């Protein structure tokens, strides 16, 4: 039976979708598509904190007209108040050299894919009136954006993604996670997006701290399909771009063993993070953006 091609952006092939426009446009399409597939949240935000002025428009409630401004400037302005956020979230993104890699020119690099996911998650949370912060790291902390719920926050996040590429030769993930946990004062969400080619113990220690602070932690393990299945052939020297490790191998000889090893490593991560109470999802870079978005949103939904 023929299957109709998906029309929602969150279900489209990520590489094809990413080729259509800039990151913020794509993120909007993805979030719009994602939200159109959800029931509207019953939770309503409220706000007492002034946010900004805007020109009056017919139909606006007269109670929110700032009469002092009308008197002083003879302009009809309406006060807008920022709703009190339901949740504060920090997104911790790994931008190290290993992330800037794709097993095929037809796929996005892990970093490009992850950035698109970050933009979409951030937009989704901001639309939910949640405050979102961002930490980007490689061999150092490259970006630290405190959590905010304003719409301008999303633009800051997108700007940071687009104008500060990473590609350092180390992943200081523990530092990034700790910084992310600090961005949110009360218990919130910490979403870690990385290929997890890091020291597991250090990362576990950082996550333990974040969990101790009451944060809900979700780790999105970004993997290229070639990393999962070693879908190439021949023999070559395979080298780690972030280190000195070089492995000479004949692909046909080690393919099965490699796949088994990766499967085993993923299972190790799953058990280790489950023990910490952290969520863990493996995201392939050929998955539609809706997949990681759904994982992250599920974490958000579990919070009060």
């Amino acid at each position: 039976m023929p299957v109709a091609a998906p029309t929602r952006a969150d279900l489209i092939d990520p590489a094809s979708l990413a080729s259509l426009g800039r990151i913020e446009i794509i993120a909007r399409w993805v979030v719009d598509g994602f939200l159109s597939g959800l029931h509207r949240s019953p939770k309503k935000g409220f706000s007492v904190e002034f946010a900004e002025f805007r020109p009056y428009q017919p139909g606006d409630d007269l109670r929110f007209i700032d009469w002092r401004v009308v008197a002083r400037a003879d302009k009809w302005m309406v006060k807008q108040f920022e709703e009190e956020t339901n949740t504060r979230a920090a997104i911790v993104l790994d931008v190290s050299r290993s992330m800037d890699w794709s097993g095929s020119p037809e796929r996005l690099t892990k970093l490009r894919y992850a950035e698109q996911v970050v933009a979409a998650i951030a937009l989704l949370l901001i639309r939910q009136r949640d405050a979102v912060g961002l930490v980007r790291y490689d061999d150092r902390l490259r970006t630290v954006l405190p959590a905010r719920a304003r719409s301008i926050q999303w633009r800051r996040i997108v700007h940071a993604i687009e104008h500060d590429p990473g590609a350092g030769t180390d992943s200081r993930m523990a530092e990034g996670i700790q910084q992310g946990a600090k961005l949110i004062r009360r218990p919130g969400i910490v979403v870690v997006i990385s290929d997890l080619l890091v020291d597991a113990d250090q990362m576990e220690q950082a996550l333990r701290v974040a969990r101790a602070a009451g944060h809900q932690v979700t780790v999105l393990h970004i993997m290229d399909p070639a990393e999962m299945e070693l879908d190439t052939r021949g023999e070559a020297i395979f080298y780690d771009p972030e280190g000195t490790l070089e492995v000479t191998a004949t692909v046909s000889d080690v393919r099965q063993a490699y796949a088994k090893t990766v499967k085993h490593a993923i299972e190790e991560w799953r058990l280790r993070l489950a023990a910490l109470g952290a969520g863990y999802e493996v995201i392939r870079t050929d998955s539609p953006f809706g997949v990681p978005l759904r994982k992250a949103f599920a974490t958000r939904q579990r919070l009060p």
Partner: protein
Amino acid sequence: MSFLAPIWLALTAAVAVPLFLHLLRRRIEIRREFPAARYLLRAEKENVRRLKLRNLLLMMLRTLTLLFLALAAARPIGALLGSGHVPTALAVVVDNTMSTGAIVDGTPLLSRLKNAARTVVQGATGNDQAWLVTADGVVTGGARDVVLDAIDRIEPLGGRADLSSAITHAAGLVLAADLSTSTVVLLTDAQSSQWPGDVNLGDVRVVAHAPTGTAPFNRAVTMAEPQPPRWSPKGSVLVGASGADSVTYRVTLDGRTAARGLLRGSDEQVVRLEPGERGWIAGAVDLAPDELRGDDERHFAVWVGDAPAVNVLPAAGPFVREAFDALVQSALVTRGSAVEVASVDEATKLPALLLAPNDPVRLGAANRSLERLGIPWRLGDVRRDETIARGADVEGTPVRLRFPLRPAGGAAVASDTLATASGEPWIVAGPDYVLVASPMSAEATSLPITAPFLPWLSNLLSQRLTREGSGLVRADPGTPIRLPPGVTGFEGDSQVYPVGATATAPSRAGVFFLRRGEERVGALVVNPEREESRLDRLSTNEFKARLHARDVFVATDPSDVAQRAYDASAQRPLQALLLLLALGCLISEMIVVRRAEPRGLRRVAPSLGS
């Protein structure tokens, strides 16, 4: 194991390639960025033992594949579980000459030879080529069942045939087949008369069977000769048999017993007969049966007719007239006009006995008469030198006057010269005439006053100048024959076989009447060669010495022949087996390799590390 194309063994050096590749520490220059290299390292460490085993297995499979292919190219042959043999071109020569019809120990020798031949052919496989060649040179080839059927249908021949030619032909057949082994199996009774000399068979194997022991005693009719060839109507048969003991014989004419008698030792007897029938009559002389029935009977044919009617003209001379009167009184001739005896110059017709004129003056008239009668001879000028005649019946007869005979027009003359004088034709004969270059007078020649004159004249008148009864042909079984002009076929087995001017005599003995349309014009008498009745055999060594070939084995037991026919080649080609092994290794190698290759990757090999 041996190899038919050993030069291809050089390919075995190719097995060094996978060995070399396996042992070589290859220089890999392709570098690929791969962030998950740590997982790859872990996978290699955890599987190093399995990988080494797998690589060793692949190396062995590839080495074996090349080894098997190289060996297969060299076309090896060898014994495998003790069965089979290399493709063999096999010609089985069965000696079915008359002598093999002898009964030995209660069984015809030919039956034993046929059984041995059957066993040999049954051992042939689909890779072999088999022929059956009989002593008369008849070849039967093709499928094994066809050859077996032909063996069952072998019958003893009526004569000795030409076994040497049959064997040589068989050797040519197997050599032309261009198979691995060329073998001629010869099954014979090793009759010494069949092997007068050596037979060179070239580069073939010969496996022969020759029985040992004393040949059975055999008595044969050696003589059954009608005298004269035309009976008018009286005649006689000269009878003879081999063997020292006395033996009774019987003479039959047209299947009816005409006479019986007793022969002592190897004596010959004349049996006088006067049959009542006229025309061509088949006769035979037979003995009591012994171990070899084929030569217990000997055939003859005779033309029986009335005495010729002869007219003697006056110029023939007084001697001729006196002799004629004596022949008339003996009823060997009668007075009439069928045959004329005359001086050449007064002859009026043919057939005629023509004598040279008494007077040389009549020379011109005589030559004109010869021309008129269509005789291609002319009389030359008279010669009066005394000379001696040479020729049958007139040998040593003095000749004092003669007219030398010259061919008319100087051309060669197709006629018989019955006698010569001074090296020149003296008595010549042709169709319907006999011409004597001297007159029958005492002054010209002593012939009319010698004793042989009467039988000479009688023979000319009753045999030579009689038109009937001239078509007698004698032949050995299965030999080429030349038939008289106009013969369209011969009778045998109650039917007429059409023939041309040349034909082959039947392979069995008997009398076969020659036919010109519906008329019997002669007889073909086929009798076995006399030497075929001598059954004495060559010893094994003598027999082996007669055969010259690459390898000769003579078995005294027929059952050894079947075993030895394939003995030197009791091996089979191993090429197919080696190819199967190579294929098996290739398939195994593919399975081992593909177990590590997911299905989708066999078609697409994406680049890694972009």
